[in-house]
């Protein structure tokens, strides 16, 4: 039977599929589970409202991440930094059932170090490492040049190294690609 809503519901199913990733990104970005759910819900609402703007057969995931990014950015600008309503919380315990205390500790330190990166650096690092996005797609989602993606990625990674290292770590400056 012909169902005029079938195409629509297929797209909605595809959006639903992305929810776990979007939630993860929201959590990693904001450092707080409640803030993450708020950001996720708002992003979904915006996405549904603007679904007509998404061109079928283009990268839906990238589009959804762009929506979330834009929302978070404007929120971030409005309130200066992370609003005090959402305190930073340590992720490791609630998320992981790892019985290894040392591992827990290490990951908690990592989370702290990540939340100390600038938002720009953290976004790039997360999209690359969590989502495995090609640099070109990251540039598109964040609306920056690919060169900017690379320099933020480099700074993020080196900040983490020095933030987490017990001793200072050497890193050579190499020729950059223009």
């Amino acid at each position, binding site marked *: 039977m012909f169902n005029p809503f079938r195409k629509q519901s297929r797209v909605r199913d595809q959006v*639903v599929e992305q929810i776990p990733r979007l939630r993860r990104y929201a959590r990693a970005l904001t450092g707080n589970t409640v803030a993450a759910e708020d950001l996720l819900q708002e992003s979904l609402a915006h996405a549904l409202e603007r679904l007509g703007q998404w061109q079928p057969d283009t990268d839906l995931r990238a589009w959804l991440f762009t929506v979330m990014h834009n929302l978070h950015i404007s929120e971030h600008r409005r309130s200066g930094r992370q609003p005090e309503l959402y305190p930073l919380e340590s992720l490791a315990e609630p998320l992981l059932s790892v019985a290894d205390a040392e591992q827990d500790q290490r990951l908690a330190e990592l989370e702290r170090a990540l939340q100390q990166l600038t938002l720009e650096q953290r976004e790039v690092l997360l999209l690359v490492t969590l989502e495995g996005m090609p*640099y070109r797609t990251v540039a598109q989602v964040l609306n920056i040049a690919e060169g900017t993606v690379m320099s933020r990625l480099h700074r993020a990674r080196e900040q983490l190294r020095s933030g987490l290292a017990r001793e200072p770590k050497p890193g050579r400056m190499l020729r950059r690609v223009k």
Partner: protein
Amino acid sequence: MKTQNQPVTEHDLHSYVDNQLGEQRRREVEQWLSTHPVDAEQVRDWQQQVVDIQQLYQPLALPLAAPAGRRQLAAGWRAAAAVLLMVATASAGWLARDLQLQPVSVVQQQLTAPAQYAHQMYASDPGRPVELGANQVVDLQRWVSSRMQRRIVAPSLQAQQFSLLGGRLLPSTNRMAVQFMYQDDAGERVTLYIRRGEWQARTQLPPQQQQSLTTLSWTQGEMGYALTGQIGVTRLQQLAELVQQEPSLSTALTVAVLAQR
């Protein structure tokens, strides 16, 4: 030695870590890293960061908190979003109909994720990908079996042109796990991660993707298996069938046909 090398740049090093290099360039960078220990260490640190970040943040099918509703949303769209979130939550934990069901998150957390983590740690380790080599396979199996309190063999994947390189034991929360590593003629590596767990039922997960890695994982009784590699789902499924056919590794599972999208 004649090479086509252009000088290795910072961009190359990041691309190497993020698996965004073509095959040729990747080999060139690896070659270069083998003679530049400072940069090799930098790259290793970055790779470890990737692994740790992925372990810290796994996809969250289930919400960890209720939204506080601190944002102003147009009422109609908020309701629509809430519906989507409920749909996502309801379908989050459950899988194929024919197998007795088990929450995905437990298997994902205790089997699939550590298996991928271990693959990333060791599959491209130039120094010591395995602890005991294939030439010591009898010793390896005896050691593994005794530590895991269970008869474990490294299944043969020869029918798919994969040879055993060796294996290692890994701690895994309160249980030991074993990782067997195999390699084919093209140098592609896959790992088979085996762990006992508190799984009550038979479960088979759809392929889990992390960047270029795919993992197939399944449980049977108290044994869990996860096969990881960059060779694509189809080839992995063929390998999974070989693992499941290994006579000494429990009774064979019926391989469910995974829906192709």
